[in-house]
């Protein structure tokens, strides 16, 4: 009970101090608030103006100014060459996803870590019950905060600078190393351009997760061209809730991809 009384006593002292020695909100603190708000409005207007006047009417990268283009291209579900990326404030989560290489562990990045972090954040006042507010006397809190800020900063930076190889630059290597037939080249190009390597790897290139390495996928029994066409069109049918549905690729693209994957039996097979 003594601790509770101390808390109450401190708050009572605080209120008393504010009443006797405090300053009125208007005009002193209100002045500060108003100035800061005006600064915020000016910054936002300034950013909008810079964005608009340094870019031009072309969509996509062509029309880009100092702060990016006015528009990206219009959404096209059949696109095969777009790398998905969220807005910058989600980069840290985006990159967290790429750290976990084994498919089973991906759920740690998508659900586990963010959920735990959020629970800890909400529960902070109930975990830290000390009355001490001076930073130098709160080593655990301050160290934790610095580590979290550093981690988020690094993750955000890494998420911003991650690059995937686009274009068919790897097809020749793959045909040679994985003993692929010539009719698999078209699919190999699509595989690189359509962003598959955002989640899959092939002969060591691409992302370690959440999807599996695919250079030997064709060697598994039952995985023929038909299987891959069905799978890529609708992964849900096979219990995969993570991979996007690519039915919109169209018959030719799906077939090319399927031929490529069915022929991917690893360097020893084929």
């Amino acid at each position: 009970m003594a601790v509770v009384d101390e808390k109450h006593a401190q708050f009572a002292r605080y209120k008393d101090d504010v009443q006797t020695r405090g300053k009125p909100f208007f005009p002193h603190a209100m002045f500060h608030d108003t100035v800061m708000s005006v600064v915020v409005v000016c910054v936002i207007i300034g950013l909008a103006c810079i964005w608009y006047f340094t870019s031009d009417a072309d969509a996509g990268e062509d029309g880009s100014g100092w702060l990016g283009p006015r528009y990206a291209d219009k959404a096209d579900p059949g696109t095969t060459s777009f790398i998905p990326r969220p807005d910058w404030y989600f980069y840290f989560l985006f990159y967290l996803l790429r750290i976990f290489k084994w498919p089973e562990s991906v759920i740690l990045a998508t659900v586990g870590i963010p959920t735990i972090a959020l629970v800890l954040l909400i529960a902070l006042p109930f975990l830290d019950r000390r009355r001490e507010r001076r930073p130098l006397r709160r080593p655990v809190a301050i160290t934790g905060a610095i580590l979290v800020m550093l981690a988020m900063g690094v993750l955000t930076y890494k998420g911003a600078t991650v690059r995937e190889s686009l274009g068919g630059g790897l097809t020749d290597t793959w045909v040679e190393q994985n003993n692929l037939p010539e009719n698999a080249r078209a699919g190999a190009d699509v595989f690189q351009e359509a962003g598959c390597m955002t989640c899959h790897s092939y002969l060591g290139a691409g992302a370690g997760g959440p999807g599996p390495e695919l250079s030997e996928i064709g060697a598994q029994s039952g995985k023929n061209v038909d299987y891959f066409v069905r799978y890529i069109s609708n992964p849900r049918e096979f219990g995969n809730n993570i991979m996007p549905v690519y039915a919109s690729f169209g018959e030719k693209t799906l077939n090319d991809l399927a031929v490529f994957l069915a022929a991917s039996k690893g360097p020893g097979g084929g």
Partner: protein
Amino acid sequence: MAQQRPPSLVRQIINYPLDWLEERSGLVGAVRYFLFRKVPRDTNWSHTLGSATLTAFLIQAITGAILAMYYKPETRTAYESIERITNDVTLGWLVRGMHKWGASVFIILMFLHMGRVFLFGAYKYPRELNWVIGVLLLVLGLFEGLTGYLLPYDETGYWATVVAININGTAPFLGPFLVNLLYGSADFGTDTLARFYSLHMLLAPGAIFALIGLHLYLVIRLGVTSPPWSPEAAGNERYEPEPPSRDGRDGRRAGLLRPGARRAAR
């Protein structure tokens, strides 16, 4: 204070409507309380981050409302309506630009404000509830960013949303249900866009406004903390008895830094 003469005409014109309103609603008194309440003496610039965040949010709300007058939330027409806003509508480019960049400014300010509150230990008793409300506001703010990103229905928004929904799908038990909830139908389509639009401009802003109201009420009721390292921090402990107050003529305690408080502050 006894009036020596009747109030001037100007005073009467100002006071009469205010008195009329005050008698019927009490609002004038409430505004007066808000404006003239006391805050700790050492309130500084870092305390402006909260109201700055509110300003950024209000800019989002206002520019968002204007955008909603021209935006068409249908997959075939959304992109063109954004083009029209940017090119044809008078100052449409400014409203759209402010909304787009205001989102980033809003999120940055929220994090800075959260950092300031954390540094000052202002989440401790009796302000725990305010912290929890603040974290909820942070989550809702990020959610606004997520749902708003899809609305122009361009490549970046479309594919980022596809990945985001799929990530939600990996949640245990609730995963597939969440995916269906966000898609609105069997797959990504017009229902998805309409759903995100409703979440972005009705549900989330409503919740944010309500929580901001609670947040501000608690700030006014519980007061703002002094910087903890300040020697004049409100609430500092006193170890020595108060010196006899040297208030002679005007009834106020003499001096700001009473000797007792100064020596006790570590």
